[in-house]
């Protein structure tokens, strides 16, 4: 079966028989979600840990627009819709997990049947970068998955090496490639 390339900040759910691939992962975190009973899955290619900081800034700005526009021309609904669209930004670990969960649950998946694998979260320049965003991505994913009650069954994370990933959503098998 053909492949679907999942680029940075994208999440693909329920691709049928297509194999999901993503190559050259550094600090980004690839999250695969699989339901072994229904044999369906999803993959997200996330970049940054959490939307919380972004949301606080965005909602602050949006609220200012909202109150201004509501009081002037009454276009509050349009602004509220923009806020909602923005929260679908799957470059964030937490947003991507939410999107994948919704995608599988819409097909009848139950959380106890779901399992996750994590790949990536490296630091390609370990001696220079004080803020290890790869590590933060992994921690954020683990925290979010614990809160949502989803099991992590495998991980290939950290270090300072790039990785490529292949995921079969019908079998749940993840293949990780390193080059060295």
């Amino acid at each position: 079966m053909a492949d679907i390339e999942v680029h940075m900040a994208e999440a693909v759910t329920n691709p049928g028989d297509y194999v999901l691939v993503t190559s050259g992962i550094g600090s980004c975190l690839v999250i695969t979600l699989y339901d072994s009973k229904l044999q369906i899955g999803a993959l997200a290619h996330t970049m940054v840990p959490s939307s919380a900081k972004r949301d606080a800034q965005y909602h602050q700005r949006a609220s200012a627009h909202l109150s201004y526009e509501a009081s002037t021309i009454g276009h509050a609904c349009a602004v509220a819709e923009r806020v909602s669209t923005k929260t679908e930004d799957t470059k964030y670990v937490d947003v991507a997990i939410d999107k994948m969960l919704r995608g599988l649950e819409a097909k009848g998946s139950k959380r106890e049947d779901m399992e996750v694998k994590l790949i990536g979260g490296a630091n390609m320049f370990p001696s220079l970068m004080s803020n290890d965003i790869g590590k933060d991505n992994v921690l954020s994913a683990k925290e979010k998955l614990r809160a949502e009650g989803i099991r992590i069954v495998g991980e290939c994370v950290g270090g300072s090496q790039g990785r490529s990933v292949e995921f079969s959503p019908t079998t749940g098998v993840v293949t990780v490639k390193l080059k060295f």
Partner: protein
Amino acid sequence: MESELQQVTRLEQINNEAAEQASAALSKLIDRHVDVAISKAEVKKVAELSPLIGTEEMVAGIYLPVTGDIQGASLLIFPKETAFILSDLLVKRPPGTTRKLTPLDESALKEVGNIIAGNYLTVMANALQIKVVEHTPNFSFDMFGAIVSQIITQFAEKTENALIIEIEFTINPETFKGYFLLLFEVEQFKAILGSISGAEDLLC
């Protein structure tokens, strides 16, 4: 009538001056004549950088953070074969010897990164009359996508564009290519390009 010099845009002047200085510094380092030319300078969305080179292709990446009046990153990329050729020249091995990079090669390649990035940033800072602080280079030899995405990720919240400069090195009889990427925070990036005549067309 406008002189030839006046017809050259400021961006070209920056590129030419940086290339000239890099040529002189690299020639001295390698002890052979090196001609550095900037063959292309363009602004791309950071999300569109990966097709430059295949995401799984092995490259040498030399990363230098940029601070001072502007906050950003500079990244010099050499495809694997170019990195091997440069290593032979830098550590004075017979051509075609390098098949794996040693710590000595990495150190030599970091020095090349220092020269290219340092010269470009100095010329740009002088032209724009801003203060730019250069930092020590850091090295990674891995998949292109993994190296570039780490730098993009550092700026995921702060920028949308990168200035990509294609560099050609000629060390007779060979010419080989590298890429120099500059990323700055959104407003600073607009201000930088906006103040360089000849760069208006590059603005997205």
